[in-house]
C-alpha cells in the first residue's frame, strides 16, 4: 500500500458518517430512525466540533422530506447525502424515483431493517430490495470497511453516470458492531473523489433549466431508456472505479460479484451483505472437511452483474442462493434475479433458494454447513427437493 491508512475502531454507522465526511458532502438532510440514527448523530457531531466546512445539515420532519431536500440540494449542484432504514426508506419511495428521474447523484446509506408489522429493528434486506425498480444503484456491504469504501465509491460512480446510489449495511450486525476500519487520509480521498461537477444546475441564471417537466408519450419512453443506458454504463464505471480504488488504497472492488474460493468449486453459496462474512468462514471450514465449495458475494445488486453471474454459473454444478429477504407470492429476490439471468444462457446449474435470517434470525457457520450437506445431496441426486427452502422455519 502506498499510503498509511488511519485505523479506527468504529461501528458500521460511524464508518458511513466518516465516509460522508471524507467525501466532503455539502448537504445532509435526514430524519432519525433506528438503527440509522448514529450516522446522522455522528455527522452532527462533526459539524459541532468544527471538523467539517461548508456542510449544511437539514433536520427535516420526515424521510420523504429528507429525500426531497437532498433532491433540491443535488439539483442546485451540491453533493448530497442521507441515511435511513426500513419504514423510512418505504416512506421515501416516491422520491427515489424523483432522484433517478432527475438524474441526481445522491448517495444514501440504508441500514437494512425488517419491515413492520410486526415491529422489528433487526436485519432484513426486503426494505432496500423493494426499491429495486426505482433507478437507484445498490451496493451491499459485507463489513464496516465495505461501508466506508462503498460510500466513497458510490459517490464517484453516481457522479459519473448521473444516477443515485444506495449503500446498504445490516442492522446491528454492522450498524452497531465495532470493527477496525482503515480510513483514507483526506488528501487522498480528495484525489480519488474531486468536487462534483454537475452537467446542469439550478444556479446558471443565464441558461435556466426546467427539471422534471411533463413528458408526453412521445418523450417519456426515451427518458426511461436513458436511465437504463446509465445503469448499463454503470457496470463498466463500477469496475473501473473499483479497480482505481484498489490501485490507490489496496482494496480491490473491480468484481461486482466477489468470488471466494470458487475456482474449483462444485457448488457455491451466493448472497449479499453481512451474512457473506459468515459464509466465507463456513467455506474455509467446509473446505477442510473436503467439500469443494466457494462463496459468491453479490456486491452490486443494481446494476445487476449479469455477465459475472453467467461466468460463475458456467463452472459450477450448483448455486445455493441465500436470501435474507422475500418477495411474497414468489421467492427470494436474489434467487429470482439469478434464475432470470441464467434462463437464456447455456449455464444451468442446480439452483436452490434458502430463505435465511429474516428479521435478524441468527445465521451461523453451522447453518451454512447444513445447507452444504443438503446441496451436496441434491447435486448427487440431480434434482431439487424443494425450490424455496424456509430454512429456519419452526415446524
Amino acid at each position, binding site marked *: 500500500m502506498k499510503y498509511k491508512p488511519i485505523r479506527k475502531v468504529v461501528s458500521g454507522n460511524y464508518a458511513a458518517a466518516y465516509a460522508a465526511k471524507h467525501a466532503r458532502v*455539502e*448537504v445532509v*438532510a435526514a430524519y432519525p430512525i433506528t438503527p440509522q440514527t448514529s450516522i446522522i448523530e455522528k455527522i452532527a457531531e462533526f459539524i459541532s466540533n468544527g471538523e467539517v466546512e*461548508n*456542510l*449544511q445539515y*437539514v*433536520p*427535516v*420532519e*420526515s424521510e*420523504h*422530506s*429528507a429525500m*426531497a*431536500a*437532498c*433532491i*433540491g*440540494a*443535488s*439539483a*442546485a*449542484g*451540491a453533493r*448530497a447525502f442521507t441515511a435511513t432504514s426500513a419504514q423510512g426508506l418505504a416512506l421515501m419511495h*416516491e*422520491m427515489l424515483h*424523483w432522484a433517478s428521474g*432527475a438524474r441526481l447523484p445522491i448517495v444514501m446509506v440504508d441500514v437494512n431493517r425488517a419491515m413492520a408489522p410486526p415491529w422489528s429493528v433487526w436485519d432484513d434486506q426486503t426494505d432496500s430490495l423493494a426499491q429495486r425498480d426505482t433507478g437507484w444503484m445498490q451496493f451491499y456491504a459485507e463489513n464496516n470497511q465495505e461501508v466506508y469504501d462503498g460510500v466513497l465509491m458510490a459517490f464517484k460512480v453516481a457522479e459519473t453516470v448521473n444516477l443515485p446510489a444506495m449503500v446498504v449495511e445490516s442492522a446491528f450486525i454492522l450498524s452497531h458492531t465495532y470493527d477496525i476500519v482503515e480510513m483514507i487520509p483526506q488528501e487522498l480521498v480528495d484525489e480519488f473523489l474531486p468536487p462534483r461537477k454537475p452537467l446542469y444546475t*439550478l*444556479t*446558471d*441564471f443565464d441558461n*435556466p*433549466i*426546467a*427539471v*422534471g*417537466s*411533463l*413528458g*408526453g408519450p412521445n*418523450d417519456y419512453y426515451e427518458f426511461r431508456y436513458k436511465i437504463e443506458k446509465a445503469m448499463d454504463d454503470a457496470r463498466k464505471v463500477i469496475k473501473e472505479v473499483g479497480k482505481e480504488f484498489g490501485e490507490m488504497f489496496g482494496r480491490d472492488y473491480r468484481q461486482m460479484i466477489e468470488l471466494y474460493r470458487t475456482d474449483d468449486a462444485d457448488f457455491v453459496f451466493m448472497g449479499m451483505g453481512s451474512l457473506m462474512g459468515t459464509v466465507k468462514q463456513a467455506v474455509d471450514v467446509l473446505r477442510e472437511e473436503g467439500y469443494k465449495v466457494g462463496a459468491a458475494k453479490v456486491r452490486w445488486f443494481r446494476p445487476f452483474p449479469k455477465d459475472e453471474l453467467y461466468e460463475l454459473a458456467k463452472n459450477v454444478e450448483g448455486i445455493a442462493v441465500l436470501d435474507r429477504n422475500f418477495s411474497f407470492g414468489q421467492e427470494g429476490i436474489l434467487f429470482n434475479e439469478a434464475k432470470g439471468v441464467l434462463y437464456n444462457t447455456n449455464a444451468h446449474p442446480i439452483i436452490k433458494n434458502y430463505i435465511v435470517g429474516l428479521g435478524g434470525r441468527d445465521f451461523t457457520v453451522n447453518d451454512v454447513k447444513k445447507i452444504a450437506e443438503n446441496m451436496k445431496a441434491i447435486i448427487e441426486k440431480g434434482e431439487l427437493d424443494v425450490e424455496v427452502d424456509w430454512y429456519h422455519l419452526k415446524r
Partner: protein
Amino acid sequence: MEIPENVKKRLSIPAEEHFYAGHTACQGCGASLGLRYVLKAYGKKTIFAIPACCSTIIAGPWPYSALNANLFHTAFETTGAVIGGIEAALKAKGYKVKGEDGIMVVGWAGDGGTADIGLQALSGFLERGHDAVYIMYDNEAYMNTGIQRSSSTPYGAWTTNTPGGKMHFLEKRNKKKVIDIVIAHDIPYAATASVAYPEDFIRKLKKAQKIPGPSFIQLFAPCPTGWRSPTDKSIELARLAVQTAYFPLFEYENGKYKINMPSTKKEPKPIEEFLKLQGRFKYMTKEDVEILQQWVIHEWEKLKKLAEVFG
C-alpha cells in the same frame, strides 16, 4: 417589445417580463398572472420549485418552459422540503440567498399542495427557518385534476366531489385558514395577496425578499374553469373577494398584524356580490349564503381585533 423610458417611469410594476407568452394556462387564469408578477418582482435570478398543480402544465411540457428562471418540478407534497434543500445547497456553496441581490428560492404551490398534502413539508420549512419564499396560489380546489374540493374550498361550493345535486352534497366545511397555521410558526413575514392588486402583491414580494428567514404569501387566484365564472371576470372576482372581506389582504410582520384592504372604516360589501358571478355557488340555499356570510363576518372581526391589539 421595447418600452420607452418615459413610459417605464410611469409604470407602477416592473416592466420586465420573465414569464413568456405561449404558456398553456386557461383563459382568465389567476395563477398564471400570479406567476408573471412573481417573476416581475424577482427577475431571472430565481429558482422555482413547483409541485404537481396547474402550474406544472402552465410552465409547459418538456422541452419547453414559459419561465425565464430555473425551475424544478417536484412531487406534490414536497415544495417546502425541496426549497429547503435548494437553499441549503446554495449556502453550502457560498451563494448569497435572499436580500436585494441574493438568489430568490421560491416555492410556488396550489392550495391542495399547500393546505393538504404539502402541509407537513410547509411546516418543516417554516420552523427550520430557511431563507426562501413560499407562495400558495389559492384557487380553492384541485383544479389541475378536474375541480375536486381541497381544505381551502369554501363552504357551499360545488366541486366534482361535492356536486350538490338532490342530496345537497355541497362542501360543508369552512375554508381552512392556512395563513393562521403559518403564523403559528412564528415566522417573520406572512401576507395575503390578490391578483386583482398587483402593486400590493409585488410590494409584499419585495418585502419578503428583504426580510431574512422564511416568508409565506397566500395569493388569491381565481379559476374560471373551476369556479364556473366568465373568463373576463377573474380580476373583478378577485377584487370582490377582497371588498366583501371574504379574502381580506393583510400582513403579519414580526408579531404585528396590518390590514391592507378592505378599509376597516366601512362595512364590507355583502358576500352575494362575490357569489353571484360564479356557477360553483349556484346550489347554495339562502341559509347557506347566510352561513357563509356569518363566517366571513366572524373572521373579519377576528382579523380586525388582531390588527387592533397587535397592530
